[in-house]
């Protein structure tokens, strides 16, 4: 009898112990394109996640975080959806995060809702993604954040009256065009020409597009192209056609001055005016610590860019959820905890809009200058607490 009692109490004790242990581990599923064309982006976000976990060990309180990574491979959405489905039904993750391509988040939205799993979007920038599921919160950006802010800044800070817009012909490009136009024309400017400049796949010959822009003689030429090789070609063409000498300023969202590509752009980039929510040269204490930790962990020649900081802030958001809910993740409570969440990020103060579950953050207008033998982004002006204007204005699919 006595042994039975001992056994029983031991079993009870073990069960209780197991329950505590279970409650204290939060499983986070990370879905990123670790291979293929998006691997460089995934690496940035992944390193952002690692940097937060390593350098903020106390942020999660007594709770343990278990990260389960899955490769979303190509941007078809189907691979990401399968990964999300398996993370939910096999791994039983509590929270999902990652998502570089918009399609990956769009395809997975129905799963977040059906399975009631909160999802923290770390990149995917199509504005209306947050409308697809009440389980989505976004810590990255929408194309409208930079586009609309650039429109305002072009009129107010750069003092431009007329603009020509050149854009890569795919959704982020078109969103950028719409956003810039709304911001610029609301501030008294006028867009006098809109030039689609090929797709995001191959780098086109930009000369005819730039010549057309030059002939219109605008004050500024707003360009949206994907980061990387497109941006390099844009700068080369801009220099070759002598547009700067003709008095036309080249402006754009910060995708074209991505930190990891900036040094490769050479002196052509000097004078380029961009707006974005982050660059590695931002002058604040959080960012200094972040960049230093990054270089220490991943090598002195590496640098975080806007995707790195999004991964970092995403983990900060998850840490907030975990500590607020004391390690027991209830989906509705998690999303409510994220509504109105404020954080002192390397990109400055950020918060999640309680209404739209999208990020509110500063946009930094900066100019590329040469300093100490390297290209640096010098801050010209800061637009504070910028919201996703697509949802504020209720444009197209952003209407709720």
């Amino acid at each position, binding site marked *: 009898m006595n042994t039975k009692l001992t056994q029983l109490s031991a079993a009870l004790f073990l069960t209780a112990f197991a329950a505590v242990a279970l409650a204290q581990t939060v499983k986070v599923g990370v879905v990123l394109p*670790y291979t293929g064309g998006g691997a460089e982006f995934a690496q940035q976000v992944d390193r952002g996640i690692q940097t937060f976990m390593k350098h903020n060990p106390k942020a999660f309180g007594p709770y343990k975080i278990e990260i389960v990574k*899955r490769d979303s491979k190509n941007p*078809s*959405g*189907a691979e990401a959806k399968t990964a999300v489905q398996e993370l939910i039904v*096999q791994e039983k993750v509590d929270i999902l995060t990652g998502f570089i391509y918009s399609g990956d988040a769009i*395809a997975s939205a129905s799963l977040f809702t059906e399975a009631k799993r909160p999802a923290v979007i770390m990149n995917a920038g*199509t504005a209306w993604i947050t409308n697809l599921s009440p389980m989505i919160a976004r810590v990255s950006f929408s194309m409208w954040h930079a586009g609309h802010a650039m429109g305002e800044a072009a009129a107010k800070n750069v003092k431009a009256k007329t603009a020509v817009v050149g854009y890569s012909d795919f959704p982020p490009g078109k969103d950028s065009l719409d956003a810039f136009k709304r911001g610029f024309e609301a501030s008294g400017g006028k867009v006098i020409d809109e030039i689609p400049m090929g*797709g*995001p796949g191959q780098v086109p010959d930009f000369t005819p597009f730039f010549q057309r822009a030059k002939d219109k003689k605008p004050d500024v030429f707003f360009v949206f192209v994907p980061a990387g090789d497109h941006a390099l070609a844009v700068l080369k063409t801009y220099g070759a056609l002598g547009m700067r000498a003709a008095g036309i300023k080249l402006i754009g969202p910060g995708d074209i001055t991505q930190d990891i590509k900036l040094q490769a752009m050479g002196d052509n980039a000097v004078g380029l005016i961009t707006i974005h929510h982050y660059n590695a040269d931002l002058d604040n204490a959080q960012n200094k610590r972040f960049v230093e930790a990054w270089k220490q962990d991943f090598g002195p020649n590496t640098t975080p860019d806007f995707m790195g900081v999004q991964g970092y802030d995403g983990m900060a958001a998850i840490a907030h959820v975990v500590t607020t809910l004391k390690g027991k993740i209830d989906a509705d409570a998690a999303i409510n905890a994220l509504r109105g969440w404020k954080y002192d990020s390397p990109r400055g103060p950020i918060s999640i809009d309680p209404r739209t579950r999208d990020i509110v953050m500063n946009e930094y207008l900066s100019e590329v200058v040469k300093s100490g033998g390297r290209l640096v982004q010098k801050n010209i002006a800061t637009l504070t607490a910028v919201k996703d204007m697509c949802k504020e204005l209720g444009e197209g699919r952003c209407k709720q």
Partner: protein
Amino acid sequence: MNAATELARRHRWRWWEALPWIAALAAFFVFPTYLAFGTQVLITILFALSLDLVLGYAGIVTLGHAAFFGAGAYTVGMLAAHWGWNEPISGLVAAAFVAGAIGLASGLVLLRTHGLALLMLTLCTMALLEQAANMGAAWTGGFDGMPGLSFSRILGLFSFDVLYFRSQYLYTLAVLFLCFVLVRMLVYSSFGQSLTGVRENLLRMHAVGAPVRTRQVLAYTVSAALAGVAGALFTQSNTYVNLAVLGLERSAGVMIVLILGGYGRLYGAFVGAIAYMVLEHSLAKAYPTAWQLGLGLTLVLVALYARNGVIGILVSLRRRFAGTAR
């Protein structure tokens, strides 16, 4: 059994042909949390099977087969999004018609060429469709795709299972079975025989007065329609479609699957899709950043030592075994 009777009986169903279907049904019960992945495998099998008809049987080398997959995928997507036509089975039929029509129209032009010219033209057809889908973003959703598609109950009975993909799996399996029976009938018919003749010796087929081009175009059209059904199943099971259904990656991927399994062998599509996708899936799970290395090495080994694919290995093993037993 002498060779002649074997040849005469080769269209008959054999006992082992039931195995893949029993295995697929067993997988439904054994791996209930893997059915989203399983559905993708079944769709790839159907897509590879459609490619086998042109590549393996008719000997038409194409790199643009995703054009038809995409046409089917977008047909059901656009019908559901813009006209509220979300009945799944009639959607499949519509997808087959649209993809088949594109196959017929492009086949009439393309199949006048051979070799590299044909390869390039198939690639161009796909690129044209891809660009059309990109430019018609108001209709297709472009790069961001069409979100929030919904389809009504299958046969009015089974609703699509958002989380576990149970109904999608069985539905895809049933469609795959019907398509397989059709393809099997085709390749063992006199039509199938003449296709093999075209593949093996084009000049002789011309010389015996066979309507070579008509048969090629017909095979191309049927294959396109089947690829369209695969694409339609893809959209229906994912309730999402974007430009990636039309990429070279998909065309080349399905070709690798078919070659890995063994082309011109009906079951090559099954073996190839399962071997490739299960290997990829498990490697990618274990090593999310480095799985391509393992997959690549395997493919190199297959290319070096098993030219006829996995089925080829099985066949030669059986021959060797039969040889020693005698």
